[in-house]
């Protein structure tokens, strides 16, 4: 592996880990606040899937870095500017409709990204993707069902779902941006060219929203910056909570 490719792969694995950890943590904020017990347990399972995915990406990133850092250092010892996750995933959990709409956008995205990543020439990335594909199949079914139920439920649930779609739509464009790092990896058969997935994502999400009687928004505004460390104010607050124990008691084991 050339130095350039290695550095890019390290950044890429970290990004994917950041995406998974940030979303996994956001979902975990529903634990004990779910609308009812069964959903509480089910959504916590999804959270665990994402946190598990983060661990696999960070473990690989730590191996590539080979500077003595571990997966924990990646998760707990980096500040918000070092996190390169997508902005969509760091938005606060909001109400239940908001969380499920964000979940749908993310799950459909991964249902397209992972089948590409599984073909990666990098065996480690391909192995993580192979495991995650099965989880994502289930996640999409869940978030699609919830958007249906909420969209076609009561007047109130429909209103909240539409509002969430309108509020989050501008954060979805960033998911399909490519930069030099990702382009280098895509050209070398290691990373996924996400810019090619945009049309299919739009088609899949539009079909689900339309069936749920939700209006698909026009593309108007777009927010970007997550991949370069420019975040919304929400990530810093989230990280303080996520990292406080580890940073307060360095090296603590129990």
């Amino acid at each position, binding site marked *: 592996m050339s130095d350039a490719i290695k550095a890019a792969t390290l950044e890429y694995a970290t990004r994917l880990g950041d995406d998974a950890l940030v979303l996994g943590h956001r979902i975990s904020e529903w634990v004990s606040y779910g*609308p*009812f*017990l*069964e*959903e509480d*347990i*089910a959504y916590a*399972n999804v959270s665990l899937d994402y946190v598990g995915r983060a661990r696999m990406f960070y473990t690989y990133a730590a191996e590539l870095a080979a500077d003595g850092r571990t997966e924990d250092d990646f998760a707990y010892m980096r500040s918000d500017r070092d996190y390169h996750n997508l902005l969509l995933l760091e938005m606060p959990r909001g109400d239940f409709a908001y969380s499920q709409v964000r979940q749908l956008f993310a799950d459909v995205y991964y249902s397209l990204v992972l089948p590409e990543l599984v073909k990666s020439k990098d065996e480690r990335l391909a192995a993580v993707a192979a495991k995650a594909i099965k989880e994502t199949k*289930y996640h999409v*079914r*869940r978030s699609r*069902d919830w958007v249906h*139920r909420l969209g076609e439920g009561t007047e109130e649930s429909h209103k909240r779902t539409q509002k969430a779609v309108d509020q989050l739509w501008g954060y979805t464009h960033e998911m399909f941006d490519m930069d030099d790092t990702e382009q280098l990896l895509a050209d070398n058969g290691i990373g996924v060219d996400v810019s090619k997935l945009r049309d299919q994502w739009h088609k899949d999400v539009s079909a689900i929203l339309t069936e749920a009687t939700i209006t698909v928004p026009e593309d108007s505004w777009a927010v970007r910056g997550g991949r370069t460390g420019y975040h919304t104010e929400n990530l810093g607050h989230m990280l303080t909570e996520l990292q406080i124990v580890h940073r307060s008691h360095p090296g603590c084991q129990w």
Partner: protein
Amino acid sequence: MTTEKLELFEVFIRSKRGLDHKHVGSLHAEDHAQALEYARDCYTRRSEGVSIWVMKSNDICASQEDDAESFYDPSDDKPYRHATYYVLPDPVNNM
């Protein structure tokens, strides 16, 4: 949201191929499809099963405690319903 508007479902899991589905518990859900997903999340987290059945608890017609006497007692004085009641002739060794 409360569980008042949800229905109660009974969950049956088959742990291995060839074995029976066994009743493992119940849960609340809006319909069969959702019940099946929650059954997966609530009852198969530790690889307990290869197949799940769910059914509405309301669809079960159950015997009542009060009926126990009329249901079960009459068979107490009918020992001839058990194979052990019969004395087998010697030539029949293996029954």
